[in-house]
């Protein structure tokens, strides 16, 4: 089991399942889990789920109803624009990607038959044959080129324009083969193509409201900010989903979401608060699914302006953050202590040898004194917009007060937070969604000219290493470089990443087949086509 005991992963579940098959008693198993630091409540729930999974074979039929947590009139079925989990779930049910990531984070083929390259710069993608869109049209290389090229057009408003920009050449070799040329070699292309924004739409589509894709469900109804209903696609190339129909909407209020699940109105309530886990303890008929996929909320100190331009201030803040307490009190154990760099333990390239800075108020005080800021009020911007940021701010504030450091925590509206405060305020909180590769994380967040360089970190050496690792097809070498880069970010940048936050979805026990995925909760948002409803 991993050294971070609270990180209950699917492999742990698998181990439990094996033990059950091997005849371990419930008591022994509970003990095993408790030794590993799991709260009693969570332990018995997880156990419930594992013993169910043993005797499971998919069943066809049923109307699946699930609730996410955010939805508005800006809901969209345009994969390029997708911004909320709600959009991701819908896009996953109506469209497909060329590749997708399995539980272990390894890219597997979806619409692509194969993706190959000899130099990591020119890639040949062969498409599966016999795939059709909901309107009956065959999937061809033109659809793929159209779908990928859209991201380069500023008018599309793509969320991944910064990543897509490296694709410079597109060529339809034949009806089922596409050749993509990159600006510079990038061995990660198959993983990049598994991102939700790179879903394949039909050539020439400009109105996305009908959700015409190749996916498991056909869109029957879509009302932005209200709900979507999809019905089984009988021609689905993977052989059709288990359920007959799939309804998805958002219940923003967390209590209301859980209550809807408990009362039987829905089958899945996404992203529940760790404090609500207790509600499911001793209640039969429900299970929890936990994913730690690399989502994190970070405290950013801009190093290009006061007080962050003083290195001692940044050092002091790093010692001041009580990571253990944040995981324990703010996240209630549903997170893993972080070490100030963005590559999470769920990632293949995570540097497990890199230990987080220990909490040390005395050292913090020493650095603050040296920086000459002790006793001066320092403003820290926080907002509900970033998951748990207010709780984290309050925890840091309370520790700071004990050493005579005054932090003025300022809560600002989540409305417009990303455009007004994030990246702008001298000290502020940010929130970063899971991204599949270290290359994407570093390019977007830490490269000297990165668009979201939260702490304004600049290092020529870092930029060079990034390019070097990207071009290499040698996995061992990449690992070595990425390990080194994680240490650099952890020690040199001004971003404090106290924890990787787990996502917990609650489901009725009738819902089977739900598994964690490195791309996020709800099976990387793609659960609808895999799960089934037991009768």
């Amino acid at each position: 089991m991993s050294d971070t005991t609270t990180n209950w992963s699917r492999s742990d579940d698998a181990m439990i399942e094996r033990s059950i098959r091997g005849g371990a008693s419930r008591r022994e198993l509970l003990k095993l889990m408790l030794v590993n630091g799991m709260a009693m409540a969570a332990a018995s729930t997880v156990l419930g789920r594992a013993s169910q999974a043993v005797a499971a074979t998919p069943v066809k039929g049923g109307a699946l109803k699930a609730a996410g947590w955010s939805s508005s009139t800006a809901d969209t079925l345009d994969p390029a624009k997708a911004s909320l989990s709600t959009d991701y779930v819908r896009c996953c049910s109506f469209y497909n990607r060329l590749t997708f990531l399995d539980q272990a984070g390894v890219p597997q083929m979806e619409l692509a038959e194969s993706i190959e390259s000899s130099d990591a710069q020119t890639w040949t993608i062969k498409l599966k044959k016999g795939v059709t869109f909901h309107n009956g049209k065959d999937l061809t290389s033109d659809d793929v080129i159209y779908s990928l090229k859209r991201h380069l057009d500023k008018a599309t408003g793509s969320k991944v324009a910064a990543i897509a920009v490296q694709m410079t050449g597109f060529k339809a070799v034949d009806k089922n083969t596409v050749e993509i040329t990159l600006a510079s070699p990038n061995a990660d292309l198959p993983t990049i193509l598994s991102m939700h924004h790179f879903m394949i739409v039909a050539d020439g589509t400009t109105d996305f409201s009908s959700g015409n894709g190749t996916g498991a469900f056909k869109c029957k109804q879509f009302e932005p900010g209200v709900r979507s209903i999809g019905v089984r696609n009988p021609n689905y190339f993977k052989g059709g989903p288990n359920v007959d129909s799939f309804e998805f909407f958002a219940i923003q209020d967390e209590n209301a979401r859980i209550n809807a699940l408990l009362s039987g109105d829905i089958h899945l309530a996404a992203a529940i608060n760790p404090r609500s886990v207790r509600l499911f303890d001793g209640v039969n008929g429900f299970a929890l699914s936990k994913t730690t996929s690399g989502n994190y909320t970070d405290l950013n100190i801009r190093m290009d302006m006061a007080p962050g331009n003083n290195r001692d201030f940044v050092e002091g803040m790093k010692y001041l953050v009580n990571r253990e307490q944040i995981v324990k009190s703010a996240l209630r154990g549903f997170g893993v202590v972080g070490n100030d760099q963005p590559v999470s333990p769920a990632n293949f390239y995570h540097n497990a040898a890199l230990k987080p800075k220990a909490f040390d108020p005395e050292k913090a005080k020493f650095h603050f004194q040296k920086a000459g800021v002790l006793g001066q009020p320092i403003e820290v911007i926080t907002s509900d917009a970033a998951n748990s940021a207010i709780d984290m701010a309050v925890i840091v504030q309370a520790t700071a007060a004990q050493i005579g450091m005054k932090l003025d925590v300022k809560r600002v509206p989540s409305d417009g937070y990303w455009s007004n405060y994030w990246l702008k305020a001298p000290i502020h909180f940010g929130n970063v969604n899971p991204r599949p590769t270290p290359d994407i994380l570093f390019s977007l967040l830490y490269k000297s000219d990165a668009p979201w360089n939260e702490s304004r970190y600049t290092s020529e050496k870092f930029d060079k290493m990034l390019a070097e690792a990207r071009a290499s097809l040698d996995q061992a070498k990449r690992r070595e470089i990425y390990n080194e880069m994680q240490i650099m970010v952890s020690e040199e940048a001004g971003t404090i990443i106290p924890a990787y936050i787990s996502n917990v979805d609650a489901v009725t026990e009738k819902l089977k087949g739900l598994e964690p995925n490195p791309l996020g909760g709800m099976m990387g948002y793609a659960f609808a086509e895999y799960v089934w409803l037991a009768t």
Partner: protein
Amino acid sequence: MTTSTSSGRRGIRLGYRANLVGISALGVILLWVVVALFAPHMIPHSVGEIVDTDYFGPVSRDLWLGSDYLGRDIFSRILMGARYTLGISLAAVSIACFSGVALGMTAAVAGGWLDTMLSRFLDALNSIPSKLFGLVVVAAVGSSIPALIATLSVIYTPGAYRFARALAVNVNTMDFMVVARIRGEKLPYLIASEILPNILGPVLADLGLRFVFVVLLLSGLSFLGLGVQPPYADWGALVRENIGGLPFAAPAVLFPSLAIASLTISVNLLIDNLPRRIRDRSPE
């Protein structure tokens, strides 16, 4: 009706007749005022400090009212919250009712274009959603307690105005008003001496109710980012941030609710049981 002007009859207190309910309501309010004034010296734990490793903890010897969702002491947080809930709500409701009632009576007595202009302007003001209003204030002047008080006052003035005006319009048609006008009395005299005493009862009742609304909206605006900043929180915000404890009947959500109820019910009972001499003055 003639009011008893001489003291010395049934149940005298400061020259006013008062009853038990009114006095106990006043007692509760005064208690909270004392708490608000001396809270920093009374709290057993710092409001931001995490003192319990558990969350939504039960009532215990150390944590008198249990712990909140982060494990902070709820008792201390309620005591400090009294300052915000009491101070901000009283300030906001006083400003809103004073301006609303004064404008309402003026409009009713003056009539004509002034009445029309005022009424339409305040109707328009009332039509702007409070969330939009709150966000605009944060964007324009930033977040501060005075900004919060001003926002709450502006939101609740039109309602106070409309109700006071409706009452005053009725009084304005009475014979004694006609007589006073013929006497050549000026507007301020008419408002203060003839109208106000006749609408005071309902106006005070309206004030009591508006106080409840302000106490509740206060936390909503704080969550928008306007006003009370962490680690401090007003009572409404305490209820809101601990609402996850409701299914467990956590003290962290029950006690702040009780605090709100004790204050708002007392304010309204006090108004209902004010000595008749204050409440029901009628023209001599």
